[in-house]
């Protein structure tokens, strides 16, 4: 029953995806990695559900592979926004470091079938720092209303989600049956997931909304800008 409740709350990811599909024409190319991430998130949730409920197998392999993909896509997304991962080589370095960390944790010291928190904490930490940098840069260099800026909203979502992920992984490491607080934190992850998905839905709406500002009909490379 709990699995089904978790599955339903995790399917809140469908809200931003639906908005994105309906208003797909308005999606800027620079936000494509984010939209792909949402779709991959949905696929990962479905496969996880199938692993647990149909094949009676743990979803550790799905989570581990998805974590690596998620990390790389978010780093690429932040790189595309420029102001966070300012330099190409820094982006390469961070991606290579994260990939190396994953390989060492999963393939050298562990395996795909058991949960381990280190990589998930590590990349969550990196993404939180980069998102904070993105938000701070926007606070000083953007003249428009920040809450209407999709980059700001998405970065805010990243900070909330991945900061909680750090605490969640720590709680999971302690064990949900070993501490009442840890158990509550683990349960709370579903609600945080729901909340951030709603934030992402607003962000997708804002991306497509911004594209209707009238400038685009006068931009010669308008078609190139879209996917």
């Amino acid at each position: 029953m709990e699995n089904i409740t978790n599955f339903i709350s995790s399917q809140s990811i469908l809200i931003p995806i639906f908005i994105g599909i309906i208003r797909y024409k308005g999606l800027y190319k620079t936000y494509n990695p984010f939209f792909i991430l949402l779709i991959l998130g949905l696929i990962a949730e479905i496969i996880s559900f199938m692993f647990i409920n149909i094949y009676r197998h743990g979803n550790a392999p799905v989570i581990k592979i998805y974590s690596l993909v998620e990390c790389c896509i978010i780093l690429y997304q932040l790189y595309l926004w420029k102001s966070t991962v300012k330099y190409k080589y820094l982006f390469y370095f961070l991606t290579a470091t994260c990939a190396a960390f994953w390989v060492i944790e999963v393939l050298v010291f562990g395996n795909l079938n058991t949960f381990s928190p280190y990589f998930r904490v590590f990349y969550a930490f990196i993404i939180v720092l980069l998102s904070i940098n993105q938000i701070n840069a926007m606070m000083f260099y953007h003249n428009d209303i920040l809450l209407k800026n999709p980059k700001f909203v998405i970065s805010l979502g990243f900070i909330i989600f991945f900061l909680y992920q750090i605490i969640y992984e720590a709680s999971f490491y302690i064990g949900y049956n070993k501490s009442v607080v840890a158990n509550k934190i683990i349960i709370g992850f579903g609600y945080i997931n729901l909340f951030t998905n709603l934030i992402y839905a607003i962000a997708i709406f804002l991306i497509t909304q911004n594209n209707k500002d009238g400038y685009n009909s006068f931009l010669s490379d308008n078609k190139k800008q879209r996917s």
Partner: protein
Amino acid sequence: MTDKLFYTVIITSLLIAIVIIFFVVSIIRYNKRYIQLQKERIQAQIMIQEQERKRIANDLHDSLGPLLSTVKLYMHSIVINNDADKEALNKASGYIDEAISNLREISYNLIPSSLVRNNLIVAVKEYISRLTNRNLLNIKFDVADDILISKKIELHLFRIIQEIVHNTIKHSGAATLKLTIAGQPGLLFLISEDDGRGFNLTEVRQASEGLGLKSIENRCEIINGTFKIVTTVNAGCKIIIRVPNL
């Protein structure tokens, strides 16, 4: 189990602490960059303004001035026997003289030639003598003879002095203004003191009325200077400006 819980909590807290510290450091870093950017913008604006002033002053001085003088010359070469016409011609000649004089004044205000040709001290003395001739304000200028002022800050200091004098005449109702330029190793002080009605600095700043003050502030920022205003209602105004003089 207790150890595992303890270390997990410690590491998680540490990570969150790093996130918070990073947030604060990042804000400070961006704020510094933003201030620098603002400074560069103001500097660019003021430099453009100065260049434009120089261009207009040169145009006035080099093309309009000689043209008016030539007109006057031709007017004097006309032979007129009629007294009424002669009087009209003299009047016109007088107006042309006035136009030439006004043109020189405008040109001087835009960019004082003495500042370009000599130095700040000479330019300020000339500026004060021009004002004294018009009996607008009694200005006392005090400067040490051996003081050397960097060329880079001269124009900005001159504009600051112009702004102070302008503000004193326009707003203070003062009878006397004392201007002092004093030097210290690597530093230069410009002190102005008037006996006018003074003002409430906070109120002026809050009401965004102090455009002149803003201009002084911007100029100070460009030359990495700082300034202090000491004033209260009915007690005059004292401005102390400190700039690096390297």
